[in-house]
């Protein structure tokens, strides 16, 4: 084979780098699969705490991992995968909630009574607990956005204030001050709700 023939033949050949590319892609797929197994449940809980709808939360988790798949090349640059994934799903659920503002959430008492654990409670106690939870969630919805976000994320045991700050893109001191304000507001709102409830019973 002459030199020119060898050059021509090389035009349509698969280069050796493609083999490396294929191997790299397989490694990325395996890494994403490991992330799904490890963090899908945590992401679901984060999504559910905002959306309060099981199917919407699951959709948000799937969308988050699809985004990861789309940006698989930057996977190696991520330092903390857990916080990174929570940040992705957090942005997705906030966006969804903003768009579906008019759609009613499953905040009704019956749905909460079905979802929340009720070990060792009678039917009346369960109904009262569900009603209380619904009232609390209604108060959470009345909080300002910044305070509400911090309060919701702070309910997750596995997230520290540093990680919450990283998810929200603010400083840790901001997290603390917002959480302080959120707690005070919640206490006031719940007090007001309780007084109103007692007045209506009288």
């Amino acid at each position: 084979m002459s030199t020119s023939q060898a050059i021509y033949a090389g035009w349509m050949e698969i280069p050796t780098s493609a083999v490396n590319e294929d191997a790299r892609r397989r490694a990325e797929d395996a890494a994403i699969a490991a992330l799904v197994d490890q963090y899908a449940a945590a992401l679901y809980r984060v999504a559910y705490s905002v959306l309060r709808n099981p199917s919407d939360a699951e959709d948000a988790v799937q969308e988050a991992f699809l985004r990861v798949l789309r940006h698989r090349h930057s996977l190696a640059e991520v330092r903390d995968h857990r916080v990174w994934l929570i940040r992705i799903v957090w942005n997705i659920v906030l966006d969804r909630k903003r768009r579906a503002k008019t759609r009613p959430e499953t905040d009704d008492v019956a749905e909460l009574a079905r979802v929340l654990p009720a070990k060792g409670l009678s039917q009346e106690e369960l109904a009262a607990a569900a009603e209380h939870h619904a009232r609390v969630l209604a108060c959470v919805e009345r909080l300002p956005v910044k305070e509400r976000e911090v309060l919701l994320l702070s309910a997750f045991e596995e997230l520290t204030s540093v990680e919450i700050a990283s998810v929200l893109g603010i400083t840790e001191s901001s997290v603390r001050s917002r959480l302080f304000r959120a707690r005070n507001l919640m206490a006031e709102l719940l007090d007001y709700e309780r007084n109103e409830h007692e007045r209506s019973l009288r």
Partner: protein
Amino acid sequence: MNSNPHKPMSSAPNSDFGEETLRLIAGLPAPQGLEERVHEALGAAPCRGHVLAWPATFRAKTVLESNWMRTAAAATIVFVVVGGGWGVYSRVEQGQSGKVVVMPARVPASGGFAGAGAMRTPETLPGPKIGEQATPASTDRSPGAPAGTKGTREQEGRSARKPAAPKKNRIAQPAASQVAPKPVAQ
């Protein structure tokens, strides 16, 4: 006592701000089979990279590996590119000067105003020429009064008492300024 300084909610375990509810919701278990469904969704996602390939008809060995075919294709590409470039180059004439409209030189009118560089000026009537006939028209005015001013009331009254010239004559005799000078016979 706060056991974890970086865990914000652990600092107030008994306060009533809905912590229990939020913790309950945050601790809800994920539905069964969530991971499998996510794996399926990722497997069905059309985001695999594709390398550009020849169409199936060109993938046959007889066509793809024949050198003359590749040479002909390369020659065709070169011919099209060079021919197109030459076509454009040949249509552009070098050194062609732009079209210039030469305006005729204007001759300034003698004795009039300057044109101030105007492209076109309208024709104007010739200026007034004062002749011998125009002098009697100014006899009505008093000698001290200026030509352009009106006289006093007394003068106006006096002139009103004077018999007016017959209209026929005034119409027949136009103002001296409007009478064109008659050409002098030689």
